């Protein structure tokens, strides 16, 4: 018996993979108007957080004679308790919130993914130890501990705040990644990779990680929503010492010293950061819709 070349495949037009990859991503992002909107919002805030604060000095101009002024051509969103421009405060304050979320997100995802991957992949003792650590992180009550931590350790900079949020917030991701890893582990391609003798690093990074990416990304975005809530919440509660203007501080000031709930004058001051938070989260949620397709080549192509 001889081998018959069984196929006469039609030759497809050769397109470079890279071009196709980006075209696929573009297609995914533009498939629904919501995603475009989400992306635009996120890009807008990123730009605002990156370049906005460069436009204004840290100490915004104050004007004791124009406290809680209504919106005007000069002050687009009115002024705050010290007569500073609310719009400027909003721009200056965006950096802290965004940077914190970014740092916390990177940290939580990094740690959570690493722990979940290693635990799921190695099983045995390493798994037990890592999962106990994860259980520990999941068991400690997050917000209360944050409150305590913020008192022990002043989170002056977004870096510190982000790190702490990340430290408290990686457990969920680790658990999700682990259970996903466990199920992927039984898949043929992983068994194949192992019996081919590919290194563990290769397996973890090249084989597992891309398959986990949608889960990680999904969890990351969910985590970001909770980070926004936690951090702005801490400022709102007035627990975290704030060094500079940020949205949480603005809400806190508006409610607790501006009387925004009682008086319409300070309402702008309250609403401006609230709307920004809502907008940011809307952007995240709308963008979330595209994540699955972004990471899955099969969905990406359709």
């Amino acid at each position, binding site marked *: 018996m001889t081998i018959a070349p069984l196929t006469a495949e039609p030759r497809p037009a050769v397109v470079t993979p890279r071009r196709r990859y980006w075209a696929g991503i573009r297609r995914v992002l533009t498939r629904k108007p919501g995603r475009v909107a989400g992306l635009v919002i996120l890009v807008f805030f990123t730009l605002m957080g990156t370049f906005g604060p460069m436009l204004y000095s*840290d*100490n*915004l*101009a*104050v004007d*004791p004679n124009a*406290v*809680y002024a209504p919106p005007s051509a000069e002050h687009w969103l009115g002024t705050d*308790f*010290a*007569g*500073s421009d609310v719009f400027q405060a909003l721009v200056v304050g965006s950096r802290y919130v965004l940077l914190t979320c970014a740092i916390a997100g990177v940290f939580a995802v990094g740690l959570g993914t690493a722990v979940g991957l290693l635990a799921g992949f190695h099983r045995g003792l390493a798994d037990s130890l890592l999962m106990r650590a994860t259980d520990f992180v999941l068991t400690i009550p997050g917000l209360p501990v944050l409150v305590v931590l*913020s*008192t022990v350790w*002043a989170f*002056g900079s977004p870096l510190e705040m982000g790190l702490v949020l990340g430290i408290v917030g990686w457990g969920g991701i680790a658990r999700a990644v682990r259970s996903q890893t466990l199920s992927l582990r039984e898949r043929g391609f992983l068994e194949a990779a192992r019996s081919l003798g590919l290194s563990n690093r290769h397996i973890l990074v090249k084989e597992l990680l891309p398959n986990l990416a949608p889960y990680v990304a999904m969890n990351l975005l969910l985590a970001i929503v909770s980070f926004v809530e936690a951090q702005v919440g801490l400022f709102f509660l*007035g*627990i*975290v*010492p*704030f*060094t*500079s203007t940020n949205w949480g501080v603005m809400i806190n*000031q508006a*409610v*607790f*010293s*501006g*009387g925004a*709930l*009682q*008086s319409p*004058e*300070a309402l702008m001051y309250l609403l401006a950061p609230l709307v920004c938070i809502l907008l940011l989260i809307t952007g995240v949620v709308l963008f979330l819709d595209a994540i699955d397709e972004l990471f899955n080549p099969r969905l990406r192509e359709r």
Partner: protein
Amino acid sequence: PDSGAKNGARGGVFTTVDANNPITPGAPMNPYNANGNSFVSFNTMRLGWDKKNPLNPNDNFPGLAKSWEMKGDSLIVHLQDGAKWSDGTPVTLDDLKLSMALGYTQSAAAVGARGLTEGLNVSSVEPAGAGAFEFKQAPGTKNLTFTKQVLGQVIVNAKVYGHLVPADMWDIIHASQQVDPAKAKDVKAAAAKLTGVGKQVSAFAPQKDISAGPFVVRKLNPGSVILDKNKNFYAAKKVGPSQVVVRHYSGNEQIWGFMKNGELDAAPFTAIPENVLKQIESKGYQRTESVSYVQASLAFNQSRAPYDKKEVRQGLAYLLDRAAATKVGQPVGGQTAAAPTGMVGQMTQAWLTKDQSSALEPYAHDTAKAEALFKKAGLTKKGGKWYLANGKQWKMTLQTVNGFSDWISASTVIANQLSSAGIDTKPQLSADFGKYQEDMAAEKFDVGWWLTAVGSTARGDFQRLYGESDGFTANGDKASHTDKKGSGNWMHGPVNVTVGGKRVNPGDLTAQLAGLDNESAKPIINQLAQVTAQEVPVIPIWDYTNVKFYNEKNFTNFPKNGQDDLLGNFPGTWMAQGYIQPKK
């Protein structure tokens, strides 16, 4: 269905919030509990009510005591005719004795050993004729405020609290009152025993309220307490409202909300922004103002450059526009502070003569003077920025505390003023007061906010400046001084200062105030004010004002501006004197 709406229906329900005793859900109904649900002047009664008269600490409104007088070392107190408990039984010697004893287990135990110059120093209570009782001072006592101490004690019912104290209670008290240094050990042991009793007392939760005050607790909710008028109160006829509702609050903004809805008949001061004030006033609330013996200041760590130079501190005092800061920080409850004297404005006026006070530098806002002083201190100005003598740029971090929203707001303005004058300033916040104090004691800050001029006594005021935080510890009328790190001295002011050509030690001067009558105290107070104005250990930004709101929708006849002694007291005290009558 808010309780305000019930006012009309039930007639005479007086609704308020109690700033000193916010309701603490779950805490016992016990005046000795630090968070207890007991309401001073309503169901928590005293013999008298301190008028906070700076010139006479013993000046009181009558409470359960109709009148009193010092006879030698003893205070003779005449109880009100018909001083009764809400269960109808009269207030007896037992009640008074027990209340004094309980007082010891609380505050006196902690301060009793301080040479008997302060605190409660009663060594016995005895009957002195019909309705009169004699409160004897402990031997060797030099307490000028004995009357105030006795009258200020909470009077509780012996039937309710009696079982908490041991039979030999007074022996223990006497043991704790010995001044002989050889007996220090016994004193300590006795104090410990008293503390032990105190623990039980403070944790004790009476099931039912028995009050000698105008009201008695009917019902305690997590969100409010309802007090019924005490029919057996000695002045029940004068008391207008038939019920009092004290509402719980946990933040100022809540009180604003209550008032905005017209739910309160009277409310104490809270930091209020002007826009909210407008809203509240449009609801018919009126405002009374009286003196409040607290001041918000910026304090310096005088061991740190450039604040180690008094010229720099003086210069800053000139540079700061305190009025602008007040306008943003405390527009309603504050008054721009005058010169730094260590006391609030009214106290300064009371204790210093016109000449004396006008001789003090008022530090009116004056940039030119400030720059001159800075230059004199060796600072230089280049390109609009100030540089220190060592060539580094002058950057200031202004430390503030979370939750003190007025300080935070004012800091923004101050930072702005200083920055535009060439001193780069950034406000920075501590997480809470605990953290702030600890960091302050650990000398982590150069400049920070500090409450000064606390209380109506000059000694209390100056102790804030020349006491523990400046390294001074009073022993009798002398003070020892330490500069050690970690000793609590974070101000590091000079030990000896030359004022008016005289070298004085402000710590010693402050300690001396303890045992002096008004006339002998005045020159010392003047000296201390001079020291303060010259050295500027703190820059006062504003004097707090004691603001109260009232609404005449349901009741009339509230105390008015000018009645500072009344306004500084509690609504129950007013009612016992016939204020607050239902609207006809």
